[in-house]
């Protein structure tokens, strides 16, 4: 759909972008923490299996853990150092997960170990898929779905268009923006790998119009061997969501409960693409990623290339935070998760760390009014659900009705409804609870049936 000359999707919201502070700041290297904690589950799928033992010395980039089956991925050492311990560590979800505690050598030059290169010309599509898995690449936009699983097109399906997602619609985050400006060639090299794996005919790089420098930079250097274009989109949240982006760019709708490849499209985050292009030619694995550290409580905000496994406590000490810091979350403020402890680490899916102090946090502590049926949520929901009706049903715990008649399970928790609600009803949280209840009930029903 086109509006005012720029493509976009229907509905959605306009949160304050809050990107001006960090958008112009080049990516800086973040120092190594005294101890890096690398969780073995940083992705959707089975935990990786450690191939190192306690007290073993490892080199930066060396394999720490191998994938356990296809739906799993590899972990690499973010620094040269010694493995102190392999044990449980807290994760952002609140669960304890197995992790590798690595103590970097202070005097090391921290050279990165290269592995077996995956040559674009010579490698077969299956070899590229295997190389992506060995590189431990997952969706860096936040979902952390293993990229090699995503790019492997199942038999009988066909992808005609690959969409490179440079939308970055979350407020405060500017990592994808910087990657597009500073790693253009990596992005294009990554696209070549992805096109070869998927067999897609063309690529569209989608960037929101609030990043004109990135759009211009990408267009200027667009390689003649790549079939495709860079498309500017109208700024709107949640345009970075796969379904919204596909609809905005291609006018196709992903059927309820199906995947983008069912409509011949595939979305890959731009930073993920850049990592494919940067790591595969050298046979390296992910040992660091680019994140934005920002928010009103951060004294030295910026975009950093940070080692995977950096604990939040060390991270916040380095950038400095206000005395009255109140809330820290991983990811952007619309969909990010609040940290309950500072002992959790930056993982592959962490696109940003945002910290709010009291005043900024208080804005959400508002009095909850009854629903006045204003319909703002109906106009905001990008999936065209009716959050107001779902809210009434949630109050009486009619979870099955919510799922069966009102498409609850299509909600991807973008938070647009809660954002606009003038009654400050925690709509999306109610839907999370209801979705979990539906999943539980359905699993139980399946079990009793079998």
């Amino acid at each position, binding site marked *: 759909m086109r509006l005012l000359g720029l493509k976009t999707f229907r509905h959605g919201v306009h*949160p*304050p972008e809050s990107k001006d502070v960090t958008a112009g700041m080049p990516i800086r290297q973040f120092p190594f923490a005294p101890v890096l904690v690398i969780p073995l589950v940083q992705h959707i799928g089975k935990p990786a299996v450690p191939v190192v033992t306690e007290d073993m010395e490892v080199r930066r980039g060396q394999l720490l853990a191998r994938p356990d089956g296809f739906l799993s991925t590899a972990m690499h050492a973010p620094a040269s150092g010694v493995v102190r311990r392999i044990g449980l560590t807290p994760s952002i979800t609140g669960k304890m997960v197995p992790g590798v505690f690595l103590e970097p050598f202070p005097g090391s030059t921290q050279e990165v170990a290269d592995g077996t290169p995956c040559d674009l010309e010579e490698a077969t599509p299956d070899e590229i898929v295997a190389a992506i898995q060995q590189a431990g690449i997952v969706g860096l936009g936040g979902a952390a779905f293993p990229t090699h699983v995503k790019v492997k097109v199942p038999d009988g399906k*066909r992808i*005609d268009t690959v969409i490179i997602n440079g939308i970055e619609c979350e407020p405060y985050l500017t990592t994808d923006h910087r990657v597009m400006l500073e790693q253009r060639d990596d992005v294009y090299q990554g696209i070549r790998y992805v096109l070869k794996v998927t067999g897609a005919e063309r690529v569209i790089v989608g960037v929101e119009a609030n990043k004109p420098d990135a759009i211009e930079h990408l267009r200027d250097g667009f390689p003649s061997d790549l079939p495709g274009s860079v498309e500017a989109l109208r700024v709107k949240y949640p345009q970075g969501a796969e*379904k919204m982006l596909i609809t905005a760019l*291609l006018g*196709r*709708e992903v*059927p*309820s*409960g199906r995947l983008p490849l069912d*409509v*011949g499209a595939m979305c890959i985050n731009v930073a993920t693409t850049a990592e494919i292009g940067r790591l595969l030619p050298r046979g390296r694995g992910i040992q660091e990623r680019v994140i934005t550290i920002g928010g009103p409580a951060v004294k030295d905000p910026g975009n950093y290339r940070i080692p995977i496994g950096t604990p939040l*406590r060390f991270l*916040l*000490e380095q950038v400095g*935070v206000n*005395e009255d810091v*109140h*809330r*820290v*979350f991983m*990811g952007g*403020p*619309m969909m990010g*998760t*609040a*940290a*309950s*402890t*500072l002992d959790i680490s930056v993982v592959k899916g962490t696109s940003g760390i945002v910290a*709010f102090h009291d005043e900024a946090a208080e*804005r*959400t502590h*508002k009095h909850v*009014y*009854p*629903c*006045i*049926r204003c*319909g703002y949520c*109906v*106009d905001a*929901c990008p*999936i*065209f*659900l*009716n959050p107001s*009706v779902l809210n009434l049903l949630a109050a009486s715990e009619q979870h099955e009705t919510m799922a069966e008649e009102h*498409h609850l399970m*299509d909600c991807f928790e973008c938070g647009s409804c*809660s*954002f*606009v609600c*003038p*009654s*400050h009803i*925690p709509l*999306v949280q109610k839907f*999370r609870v209801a979705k979990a209840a539906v999943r539980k009930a359905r699993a139980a029903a399946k079990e009793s049936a079998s």
Partner: protein
Amino acid sequence: MISRLAKTLEIRTSPHIVSGNSVDTIMFNVVLALAPTTAFAIYAFGLAGLLTLGVAVGSCVLTEHVLCRASSRPSTLGDWSVTITGLLYGLTLPPSLPLWMTAVGGVIAVALGKALFGGLGFNPFNPALVGRAFLQAAFPVALTTWTPSFAVDRFVSVPGSTLAFPLTEAVYVDVVTTATPLALWKFDRVATATGDAAMGVISGSTGETSALLILAGGLYLVARNMMSWRIPVAILGTVAVVSTLLHWADPTAYASPGFMLVAGGLMLGAMFMATDMVGSPMTPIGCVLYGVLIGGLVIVIRTWGGMPEGVMYAILLGNASTPLIDHWIQPAVYGTRRARGAS
């Protein structure tokens, strides 16, 4: 510092930011949008207008406060919604209405129209119209007796009926009563100049007289995205189209569309009462249906009904059909619609 931080970290679920919009902000802006109309009502009807509006707002606000206290809940005056109810209710009343009747209707509006259903957000009908409908049924004569606007002595005296002793019959001996433009047309086929009706130099309810000021208030709310523009457009559009057809068929029997649009309570009702968020549908298509229904009912009641004016009942019937409209008209969910251009 960091150790202190870990102790005070607050865990909340996303989204971590919200838009600045709030129920009390929206409601307060509706009050603001009604201010010009209110001021003009007081200017046009003088002391009687001021007293009617004051008693209307006062009785509504007081009832809400007392009922909140009686049910041991915090007072809800801060959300401004009852102020709107009071204002709208007052603006629909004849300026010479005995004040005790105004007060009784105000209590009914809030107690039976709103609190009984559970307060803000749960009232199926517009409370202001519930109060007025009660008065219309209980005191039909007083509710259809009109004093002229811009009386010379309006700032120094009030009609005798205004201060009538409670529970006594209102006496209108000392007042020159006039018919409203709609009644003139309905019963005597006397047409009032559309321009006079638009500007408000006519007789009628306190706030129904100046269509232009009401329109300005409505435009303000639409500009701030605090009102569904579809509802007034659908209502006024329906009235305009149908009355044009009727007037074109027989100009002597049917009033002109311009007159139909600006006369009576149509403008106030379409802009401020039919658009009450609580009682109107939530989907865009639902809003249009609802507006067309109300517009159609206005024409039917005004043209073929027993009363000269039908906006109040049209909106109440519209409110009543809202749950049904919302049940029928749901947004077409993404991914369940016809696939466009899928390969």
